[in-house]
């Protein structure tokens, strides 16, 4: 029996299963940290504990710093879609629906999800690495020894900034996306701007705009919460900072795709 156990423990199957279980354990632990920190943020908000100076700085980071990359990504995505779809639709007699299609696509999906991806790669990664560096250089220990809550000082302003600033960023990016789509459709298929903008409102309702803003706020808060949590749990040195940043980006990507699916089922199914 002993030799069987020894043989089994050296087998590839055992090692793969062990690796999977360890991965699952780590994932559950990360998820637990995110949930606990999320409750911590809500508790601080109910108690009115927020560092306003830090909040304004983080709003600038989320809103202003991220704007060029977000606008570029949403705008270019719109150009890519319009350049492939507009001519074909005009050829098939559906030119009157190009504006509707692109606007619906941008308002419901592209604007918010591509902005989310841009925010994750630019802001989420920087939040995670910043907080992870603070962790490994004992700055977070110093905050705790000074009897200041790291949740209040680090998490609340960042999560709030994500919640508040992501909707305007998505709104501006969506406008830029629609305009880029109109220009591209005109250049690619000769579709008039009037035809594009007339069809824009045929199938886009206030509900779509409301869901878009709600989704943006949720994504902003979730990206900030995941990034802060991954950075906060970092350990070791430079390697730990790198791992925390990677984890933050991967978890944020997965989280917003899952959330997007939930929103789609809840509001449009």
């Amino acid at each position, binding site marked *: 029996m002993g030799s069987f156990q020894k043989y089994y423990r050296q087998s590839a199957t055992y090692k793969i299963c062990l690796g999977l279980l360890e991965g699952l354990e780590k994932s559950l632990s990360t998820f637990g940290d995110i949930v606990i920190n999320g409750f911590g943020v809500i508790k601080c908000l109910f108690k009115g*504990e927020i560092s306003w100076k830090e909040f304004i700085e983080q709003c600038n980071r989320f809103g202003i710093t991220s704007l060029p990359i977000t606008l570029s990504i949403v705008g270019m995505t719109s150009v890519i879609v319009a350049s492939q779809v507009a001519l074909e639709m005009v050829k098939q007699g559906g030119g009157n629906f190009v504006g509707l299609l692109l606007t619906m696509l941008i308002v419901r999906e592209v604007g918010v999800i591509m902005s989310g991806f841009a925010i994750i790669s630019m802001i989420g990664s920087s939040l995670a690495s*910043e907080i992870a560096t603070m962790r490994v*250089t*004992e700055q977070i220990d110093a905050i*705790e*020894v*000074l*009897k*200041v809550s790291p949740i209040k000082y680090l998490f609340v302003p960042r999560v709030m900034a994500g919640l508040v600033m992501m909707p305007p960023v998505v709104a501006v990016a969506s406008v830029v996306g629609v305009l880029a789509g109109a220009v591209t459709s005109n250049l690619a298929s000769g579709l008039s701007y009037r035809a594009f903008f007339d069809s824009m409102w045929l199938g886009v309702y206030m509900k779509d705009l409301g869901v878009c803003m709600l989704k943006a706020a949720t994504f902003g808060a979730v990206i900030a919460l995941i990034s802060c949590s991954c950075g906060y749990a970092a350990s070791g040195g430079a390697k730990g900072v790198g791992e925390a940043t990677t984890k933050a980006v991967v978890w944020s990507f997965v989280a917003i795709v899952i959330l997007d699916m939930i929103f789609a089922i809840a509001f449009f199914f």
Partner: protein
Amino acid sequence: MSIEVKHLVKTFDDRKVIDDVSFKVEDGETLAIVGFSGSGKSTILKLICGLLTKDSGEIITSDGDIAMVFQYSALFDSLNVADNIAFALRERKELRNKYTEKEIRRIVSEKLELVGLKGIERKFPSELSGGMQKRVSFARAIVTEPNTILYDEPTAGLDPISSTLIEDYIVRLKEETHAASIVVTHQMSTITRTANRVIMLYNGKVVFEGTPEEMLKQDNEYTRQFVTASLEGPMQMLAEN
């Protein structure tokens, strides 16, 4: 009595890093904790200030703040010197309500003057030398008027002159604040110039307790090996050290 530690035990991964350690530090007294790297010195500080939780034993401290000066200063690199020092005054509710912004600026200036760095309020930590960063971290630690100050290797990585300066400030802060202080260090000059008493740790246990003078007499085989920096003696470096 300002700090009393009784039968403290802390284990990491089945290894007892702190094993039944007890000591007392009175107000206005400085205790030096010495020992090998990895002997649990910094762990004791982290247990006292609440960054780690103990497995068993007691840590009794008098009411009031516990301040800690970290080995690598741990200044907030996104804040300038003034904001670093004023951090607790601005972020802790009870202190924020107690002081106006004008008073906070005055306190920051006073604390900087106390550590000999007047006029550097607007500089960022990255613009300061290691010794200056350490002194700013002293100023940040004492801004809340603590009755206990913990120093984690305050002179590590500094040149001998900067070390002497830091040691002078440790003595000066003790005289100004009358706080109970614990200094974790390897450096003999820091022990002899700042401490009233010394305890030595090996394998998580206290193997010597006495004054710096008694330590230098080398009556104890552990302190003899430490003072002479000899490889021969009862203390053997563990592989993971």
